[in-house]
């Protein structure tokens, strides 16, 4: 696995200012338990005739994908790989509402056509006319990491040179109410759409390098602590959300570590959803690019971090069943 994998560009839509890094200096702070994403201005990104027919998640996806590609050196990625926990949920929801209200005889084809999880990845391919590898992962809170792992191993093995990787999830007001019941480990809920251009090409425009991507199913704490190296993994970016049910597994891991890393969070300003970890990836990359840690990301540290910002290690779990580890390195 001789090839390298760099992040060449990134774009996000979330409850922070869309397609922007403004959150880094002045984040929007919310008191609500649930906030929808700030919609991006699509007029320079999508033709109005196309935009009208797109659901929210599709508009956000196209906005982040086109923006990330515009800011990168790649126009036609070899692979388009997408993670989404719920897919085009709002269209599925509308189809289910129609089904329960009007029965089985006057349903709308467009809702069904744009309800599958892979609608997202294939729409980008249709717009870009990309005939290459195209895949979609839908596995709860590690949907993004599954896509990243797919791209990463293909790039390391020379099967592809570059890839557009992302994760996208929308949460309707109805789904938020459902999530309150079904996911008691959540706290502040919002939406996420993140696109990243990855390349094996070394360039001064690269943001950072992806040096490790690992997924685990029901790991022992020991398996996770063995992964972490006190000389490398000094800065841990965790999926902490302020809810004990979610945070306890991270705390147990930190207790079992033989050293004390500097610990950071991101869900306090970006919120929780199945694609939240993609925002963690985005935040980690931005920290390395800007060589600075915004104070509001600090979690339970006694001091300000003064060490080298060589690596950021992102740890995430979904229901404490699946775990992921992504190690980013400064370039």
């Amino acid at each position, binding site marked *: *696995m001789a090839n390298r994998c760099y992040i060449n560009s990134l774009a996000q839509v979330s409850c922070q200012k869309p397609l922007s890094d403004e959150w880094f200096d002045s984040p929007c702070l919310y008191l609500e338990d649930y906030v929808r994403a700030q919609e991006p201005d699509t007029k320079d990104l999508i033709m109005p005739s196309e935009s009208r027919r797109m659901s929210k998640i599709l508009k956000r996806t196209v906005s982040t994908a086109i923006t990330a590609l515009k800011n990168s050196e790649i126009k036609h990625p070899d692979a*388009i790989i997408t993670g989404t926990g*719920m897919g085009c949920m709002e269209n*599925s929801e509308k*189809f*289910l*509402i129609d*089904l329960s209200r009007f*029965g*089985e*005889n006057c*349903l*709308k084809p467009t809702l*069904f*056509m*744009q*309800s*599958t*999880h*892979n*609608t997202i*990845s*294939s*729409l980008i*391919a*249709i717009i*870009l*006319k*990309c*005939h*290459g*590898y*195209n*895949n*979609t*992962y*839908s*596995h*709860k809170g*590690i949907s993004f990491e*599954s896509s990243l*792992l*797919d791209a990463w*191993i293909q790039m390391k*093995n020379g*099967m592809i040179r570059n890839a557009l990787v992302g994760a996208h999830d929308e949460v309707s007001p*109805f789904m938020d*109410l*459902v999530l309150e*019941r*079904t*996911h008691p480990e959540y706290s502040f809920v919002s939406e996420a759409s993140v696109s990243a251009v990855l390349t094996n090409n070394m360039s001064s425009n690269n943001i950072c390098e992806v040096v490790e991507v690992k*997924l*685990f*199913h*029901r790991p022992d704490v020991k398996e996770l602590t063995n992964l972490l190296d006190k000389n490398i993994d000094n800065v841990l970016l965790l999926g902490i959300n302020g809810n004990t049910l979610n945070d306890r597994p991270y705390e147990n891991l930190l207790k079992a570590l033989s050293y004390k890393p500097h610990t950071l969070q991101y869900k306090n300003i970006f919120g929780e959803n*199945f694609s939240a970890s993609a925002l963690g990836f985005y935040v980690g990359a931005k920290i390395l690019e800007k060589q600075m840690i915004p104070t509001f990301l600090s979690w339970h540290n006694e001091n300000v971090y003064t060490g080298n910002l060589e690596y950021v290690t992102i740890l995430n779990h*979904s229901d404490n*069943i*699946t775990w992921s580890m992504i190690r980013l390195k400064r370039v």
Partner: protein
Amino acid sequence: MADKVFVTGAGIISALGIGKEATLEALLNGESGIGKIPHIQTEHEEFPVGEVALSNAEMSRMLNVGYPIDGLRTVLMGIIAAKEAVESAGLTEKELRKAAFISGTTVGGMDKTERHFKTVFDSNVETDDSLELKYNDCGYSTELIADNIGKFNLITTTSTACSSAANAIIFGANLIKAGVTDIAVVGGSEALTKFHLNGFNTLMILDKKNCRPFDKERMGINLGEGAAYIILESENSVKARGASILGELRGYANTCDAFHQTATSKNGEGAYLAMRKAMDMAHLCPQDIDYINAHGTGTPNNDETELAAMQRIWDYELPKFSSTKAFTGHTTSASGSIEAVICLLALQHGFLPKNLGWHNPMKEDAIPVIDDVDNSNVKNIINNSFGFGGNDSTLIFSKFIKENG
């Protein structure tokens, strides 16, 4: 980078029955599993489907599982097929601990969701029915299947509509080649739901008669359901375990038609590229392909463009080909692995599955397999799976011939 990926186990459940033996018997006897709808609650009884004969209660009793699995058909079928696959490969608990489990589905727990949705929506989520919606997402069904099979080191879910299982197989093979794992349990599971039966109906691509893939008069799809998993293994692991080999996954490719969300391009660009690239990986030329298990859904659009793509490669000398969808129905996300198991059975037992329901050629020289023929020397099989969004994937399974010494 590990070169070879072998298949060392397989399991299947579909309208043709439970397990490889029942499937083989139905295929050899030309007995279709398509019939009237017995299980799902729908007004659309005019559409024949390929449902698994067992009810949820019967499968739950058979597996000795309770809530919430007893209400999740994708999970129940998935456990049955994955168990058979793991047992046929003789994998131990310890070996499964280090293995990956990659499953494809799109429906996930939609069957449970659609039963509870109205109550939840009308009651503003106050009711406990809302808890049932937890199982809607695809990942949950993969987790529940995995928990009933083994511990696994890595699990995830692919969701690319009707090519989901094929893409799970491709990801599993890439994980083995990258050295992330030596063994991967890969495939897919998908229950028939009112949701997608109605969805396909809005697209007006369901046939009220039994489907007739590659027939001039074909009118559309019969939906089906089922699950199938195969065991992929690295050469080192096969040697170390002394495992018997069912076939080699010699090539594969995932491409995108990049044309339309639910229609395929006229010249079948995605399908063409998928077959071409898979042959490139396998180091095979078109003449080496002995049989194509086509996606062949029976819609006017799919079969026309799939045939166009095949003719771009083989011109008028097409290899033997057939669609087995008239046996199983279109098992959507599971079709990639269900048909992979059918291909492996064909390699092992030296037969080619017939294209049931076929009468009239779409084009001259485009006649699928309709009679029993001696195919004992079939070596390389192409297995196509195409999904909405132009997510096209091709797998190539080859007979494993032990080298001398």
